[in-house]
């Protein structure tokens, strides 16, 4: 162990920011896809 690690806030922000952005982006992608899927399903239920 190399003693007390000084500073390092940029690493902390990097980790939190990356996680937040990734979850946000994925969430938006899934929500839009599920809305679009539902719209298409409601639009043509009898298409067979």
């Amino acid at each position, binding site marked *: *162990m190399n003693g*007390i*690690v000084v500073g*390092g806030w940029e*690493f*902390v922000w990097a980790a*939190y920011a990356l996680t937040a952005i990734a979850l946000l982006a994925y969430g938006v992608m899934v929500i839009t896809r599920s809305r679009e*899927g*539902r719209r298409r399903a409601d639009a043509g239920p009898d298409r067979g």
Partner: protein
Amino acid sequence: MEAPFVSTHRFPWVLLVAGVICLAAGSWLGLFVVPAEHYMGDVQRIMYVHVPTAWTWMVVVLFSLGSAISFLFMNDLKWDTRMEAGLEIGSLLAFLLCCQGAIWAKPTWGVWWDWDPRLTSTAVLLFAFLGILALRKFVDDPTRRAIWSAVATIIASIDLPIVYFSVKWWNSLHQQQSSPETVASTFHLPLRLNAIGILLVVIALLALRSRVAGYRLREQLAEPPSFITSEPTGELA
């Protein structure tokens, strides 16, 4: 095989909102309120997001494995949609874990990757899941795609503990003393809050993502033409 029923219940939104609130609170506590850890200083705050992500990732892997096994036994495509969601979100979380681990290792050990058995197993399973997602892209028949990816998910998930132990032995020569998980009790609140938060968010994402898979399957599996009688039978020879 029947096209799966896709629910349109609103519960994912409730979970999503609750999860985001918990995450915000937990992160705020972890970043600003809780004092810096004695040895590690502020870098240790990465743990308040890394550890909850790891716990949730484990849950998602078990969920995928459960869905795969359920599909093989019950042949109901709704399990296939859940497994697909689990595979994709499992891969996302594994990728996040590897990045967080690398970001944590750089200031602490001076290298981006310190071959910690937990993290290395996560990376191996990440590539395994990505391989299964790739396999799903190349198989068109929904039934065959479901069965093959379920088999591959079972094989890959069972491999996880074996990878963990083999890396642990392989890496035992220069094993660091403190593992990232040794967290003093005063820091538990942000940890728990974030854990609940990310779990709720991920459950919501799993539900929504499996609905997306369900819609796609319904479009792919056309309904039989109207003149089919309910149960035509062919007595032959």
